[in-house]
């Protein structure tokens, strides 16, 4: 009995790890096809720096037609195979052979198609003097599938940096008040409870709030500033709770010792509470913002553009415009490329590549917060 119980816990844990591992491996394997190359410098710089482009594909018409008819034939034969009686084994074998032959042929055709096709990004496509003739080629285009995700990476980094700054400032102010200055009572409990509840609010609600508050009411438009504040507000509950916790964990003796030496309250907090609480505050804040940075919902109405030609620092009329422009962001970009365009061999690179790069960025944030914590912990110990 004991063994069954322990094994069921064990299996549950393994299952979770296995699923997570499969998903991550899948993204990593498929994504690295887009991000890495076989030749030096082994990283697909174009993919990381260029803006997304529409991919224009011309496939040889003959091959395409034959492929399609092959496919139809296979489907027909398979249907026929299913309708055969149990006695007609020779007939069944014959059909199987035909299907086999057709599939072989399809494979060969597929290679031929890949060799014969023409692919253009937007820029090249526009410079074409003459479109490949529609008699020889079948034309298809796939939005976002060419080029790279440069602006989305830049936009995500800007969004994260700005929201960390805002969330940290506001969060630490709140935490200092709650842990050091507030008098305990019903009001304080109410404030704590509301902050706690705020962390359970769905992200789309924050998105709508940001849209209503910053984009419409304050009239900032779809802008980086609105995105910063929306993300910051979303990360705040976590940051406030964690910061307050870190500050409460500082022994009372430090405060009393400092006050007894004639330090004012603020001096005491500044010199003897905040420095020792900082490791906890920083790590939890970066963790909180890293989590929020992965959210699509809060930025899709407030800050994110599906496609933007310019990088944020290009084409500004005046410096303040920097804050009032929309940006591309990786989570939103992933949402767009995975839901708005078909999934096939032409789009897969972009889909997996973007997800993979995003995974790396978020992982980098989490890792840096852990390293930061270890480093500062070593510095301050008591």
């Amino acid at each position, binding site marked *: 009995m004991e063994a069954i119980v322990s094994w069921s816990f064990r299996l549950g844990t393994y299952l979770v790890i296995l699923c997570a591992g499969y998903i991550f491996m899948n993204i990593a394997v498929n994504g690295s096809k887009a991000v890495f190359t076989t030749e030096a410098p082994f990283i697909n710089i174009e993919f990381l720096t260029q803006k997304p482009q529409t991919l224009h594909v011309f496939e040889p018409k003959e091959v395409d037609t034959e492929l399609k008819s092959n496919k139809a034939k296979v489907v027909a034969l398979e249907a026929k195979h299913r309708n055969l009686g149990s006695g007609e084994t020779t007939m069944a074998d014959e059909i199987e052979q035909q299907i086999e032959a057709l599939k072989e042929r399809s494979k060969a055709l597929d290679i031929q198609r890949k060799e014969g096709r023409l692919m253009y990004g937007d820029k090249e496509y526009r410079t074409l003097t003459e479109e490949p003739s529609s008699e020889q080629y079948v034309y298809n285009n796939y939005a976002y599938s060419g080029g790279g995700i440069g602006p989305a990476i830049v936009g995500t980094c800007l969004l994260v940096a700005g929201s960390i700054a805002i969330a940290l400032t506001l969060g630490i102010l709140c935490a200092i008040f709650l842990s050091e200055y507030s008098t305990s009572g019903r009001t304080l409990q109410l404030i704590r409870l509301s902050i706690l509840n705020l962390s359970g609010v769905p992200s789309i609600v924050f998105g709508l709030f940001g849209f209503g508050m910053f984009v419409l009411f304050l009239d900032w438009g779809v802008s980086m500033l609105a995105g910063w504040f929306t993300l910051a507000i979303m990360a705040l509950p976590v940051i406030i709770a964690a910061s307050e916790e870190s500050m409460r964990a500082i022994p009372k003796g*430090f405060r009393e010792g400092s006050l007894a*030496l*004639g330090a004012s309250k603020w001096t005491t907090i500044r010199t003897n509470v905040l420095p020792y609480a900082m490791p906890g505050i920083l790590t939890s804040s970066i963790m909180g913002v890293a989590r929020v940075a992965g959210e699509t919902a809060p930025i899709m109405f407030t800050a994110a553009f599906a496609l933007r030609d310019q990088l944020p620092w290009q084409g500004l009329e005046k410096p303040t415009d920097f804050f009032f422009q929309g940006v591309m962001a990786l989570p939103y970009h992933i949402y767009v490329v995975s839901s708005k365009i078909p999934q096939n061999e032409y789009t897969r690179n972009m889909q997996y590549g973007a997800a993979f790069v995003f995974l790396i960025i978020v992982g980098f944030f989490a890792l840096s917060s852990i390293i930061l914590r270890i480093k500062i912990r070593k510095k301050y110990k008591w």
Partner: protein
Amino acid sequence: MSTSTSSTIAGSGTGTPIIKIRNFDFAYGDSQALFDINMDINEKEVTAFIGPSGCGKSTFLRCFNRMNDLIDIARIKNGEVKISDVNIYNKDVDVIELRKHVGMVFQKSNPFPKSIYDNIAYGLRIQGVKKKSSLDEVVEKCLRSAALWDEVKDRLNESALGMSGGQQQRLCIARALAVRPKILLMDEPCSALDPIATAKVEELIHELKQDYTIVIVTHSMQQAARVSDRTAFFYLGKLIEYDKTDNIFMNPRDPQTEAYISGRFG
């Protein structure tokens, strides 16, 4: 031994009183912790507060530098505490100035997680003293006063948390001395120390008596007998008896005092 006139104001006699407490009532919320306390504490003497746990002696001590301000529900119901003839609970009294004059050493040694040097210099730095030479001077003087200099002079820049418990407590005393207080409050400074470290701190108290007025709360009656000139016995928030230490221990007037020092309760 005090005469009958000191039934309201205990502790008169030789010496100049520096702290005068009159009709002092103190409460945490609705529960009163101190009842109508009157006493004078003499300058450059060691005054010990003894009594069973929860009798209010620490609370009383923390009234002298207004550490109780930190507790939301703490309040003075009545009476006054005068230090150098100023009522420290007056509205215009600067708590920060007060605390510079009335230093405090806590039950649990609480060195800051900084270097030994920075610990001592802290009190001066927050006052804006930046000059290295004057800081150096004060650090050495305070460490010498706390009989710690020879032990730590080679590792001033190491963390104070690497010191032994007794050293940490003496460091806290040295740190309190750095802001040049007149009065030093000690809240059970030896409760976490072994006998040898305790002996060192007691020796230190003896020496500091030359320059400072010391008020010490202690659980150990032997310690009170060893270090103090005067002893006050508290019980259930009331000052039961306050007199020269010899009198308290040899010849207590109050039966409760006698019962406590002879170990029958508390």
